[in-house]
């Protein structure tokens, strides 16, 4: 379980996040939504341990985070960012292997190599293996980074769950790979996995999330089942846009009333 308790984060005198508490349980996919400046990225930074909350606490698998020794967490917690730029030429294969870095000292073990092969196959990157990462398109780069992140937490830890954090992961992907990506995320989910994602597309969140956290002005505006949280009233209040919920077979989608 991942837990954030009474957390607040401030820059100068401005509180970017205030009094956030939430429990994230294994086997579920959580999505964080909200307008620009609502504090989504800040919350992600607290959950990924990049930032230390000014007040409150963060827990991984029921233990309070020790910020002075974070190395061990990277064995079961991985983060995919919106865009990753690398500073020197590297082969796709080498980039994916970086995901295994927390698991070996100097030389990758047989298991590390097998996991990389498996992930490369899963992401359909076999023909890219020896390509220079810097020559790839934005979408291809994101798939390679996703493969790296998956290889990092391919196996759940002996105790507790693996944690996958996704910070606007699909913004650079075309529509086919957006769905492909979400399909892979769903396949990755099991009873030993917690997935938390920041997503801009409300319709994707509505249909792919198990629970949604709706942030507004640094506060948790609403949370729970997607249908309840992303109600036209809530969206109206948060985005100041009039939305209507449409039902189409068993799919739901939101569209603004113009």
């Amino acid at each position, binding site marked *: 379980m991942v837990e954030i308790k009474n957390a607040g984060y401030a820059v100068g005198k401005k509180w970017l996040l205030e009094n956030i508490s939430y429990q994230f349980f294994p086997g579920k996919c959580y999505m964080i939504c909200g307008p620009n400046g609502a504090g989504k990225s800040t919350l992600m930074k607290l959950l990924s*341990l990049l930032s230390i909350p000014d007040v409150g606490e963060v827990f991984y698998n029921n233990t309070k985070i020790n910020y002075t020794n974070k190395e061990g967490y990277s064995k079961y917690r991985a*983060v995919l960012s919106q865009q*990753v730029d*690398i500073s*020197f*030429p590297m*082969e796709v294969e080498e980039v994916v292997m970086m995901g295994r*870095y927390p698991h070996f000292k100097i030389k990758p073990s047989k298991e590390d190599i097998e996991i990389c092969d498996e992930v490369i196959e899963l992401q359909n990157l076999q023909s890219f293996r020896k390509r220079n990462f810097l020559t790839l398109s934005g979408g291809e780069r994101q798939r390679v980074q996703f493969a790296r992140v998956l290889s*990092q937490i391919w196996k759940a830890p002996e105790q507790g769950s693996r944690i996958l954090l996704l910070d606007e992961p699909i913004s650079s992907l075309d529509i086919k790979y957006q769905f492909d990506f979400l399909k892979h995320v769903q396949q990755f989910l099991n009873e030993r996995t917690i997935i938390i994602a920041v997503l801009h597309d409300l319709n994707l969140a509505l249909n792919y999330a198990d629970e949604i956290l709706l942030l507004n002005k640094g506060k948790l505006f609403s949370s729970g089942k997607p249908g309840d949280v992303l109600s036209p009233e809530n969206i109206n209040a948060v985005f100041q846009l009039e939305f209507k919920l449409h039902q189409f077979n068993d799919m739901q989608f939101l569209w603004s009333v113009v």
Partner: protein
Amino acid sequence: MFRQSKFFFPFTIVLLIVILLCAVAFGAVSIPIHDMFSGLLHVLQNKKSANIYEGVFIEIRLPRVLLCTITGAILSVSGVLLQGLFRNPIVEPGLIGTSAGAAFGASIVFVFAIRMSAEIRDLAGPLLVPVFAFGGGLLATFLVYSISKSQKRISVTSLLLVGIAINAIGLSGTGFMSYIARDPQARSITFWNLGTFSGATWPQVGITWAVAIIVFIISFRYSKQLNALILGEEEATHLGVEPEKLKRRIMILSTAMVAVATAFVGVISFIGLIVPHILRLLIGSDNKKLIPASMIMGAIILTVADMGARLLIAPAEVPIGIITSIAGAPVFIFLLKKFNLLQEKGSSYG
């Protein structure tokens, strides 16, 4: 890409050995191979050199070549480390103040050593020079790093400009020191600015090799973490690396070895730029391969440059810095152009 890496190490090691043999054999005086062996044998037996060839080989040629190879390795590995740390292919110890700061530190000792009593000088002299060089180099490197860093990223323009300023302070400080030096043994400004291996001695060889080997082993252990830094500081953090700690350590390691080399041979620019660039194109950016490869390649290139320095206008000598700068400056300009570094678009090896 990078198919050559399988043959790279055997080929370059053989090349290095051949070049070392050439470097000890050729010079103002050519040394026959049998005199090399008998010279070494006489040293092992604790006997005096039997002829002039053995003497030149043991006392002049061999320490010079050994100091030269290790300096080449040091400057190249330092280039790799600093480029990884700054995430930028145009960084090298000569450009970001490490060498100039180290030279300044060392020149202070040369000037003030004569004011100390003879005993202190004899006792502390060989140690004080590298220690002061280290202090000066570290201060300069740290200044360039912290001044040019704004928020998260380091812009190339600010890095180069701050580097120019700190280099100017270091070099004019060195110039001032050699100007006021009354000791006829104090080194000239030409020595510091352009570097030379002509005064190589065995104690210098010993100290430089010892520091270099220690630093190489430690930096090799950091190669995985340096690789992670290629993804950026945030991603590296997610992989369990602590970037601030890593950067501090790398800066100290790199400065330690560059300072020792600079204290003995002066400032030699551009080696730390050329060698890593060639190697990234040949074998890629994995620091686990790049660090040992640049040791070998740096040794090869600087030894060849020093042979040039000795042979071009023999029996006189060209300062080695002139040769490395003539070869290195075009590479530097090429890098700036190729990666659009002057347009602030960031770097791309694509």
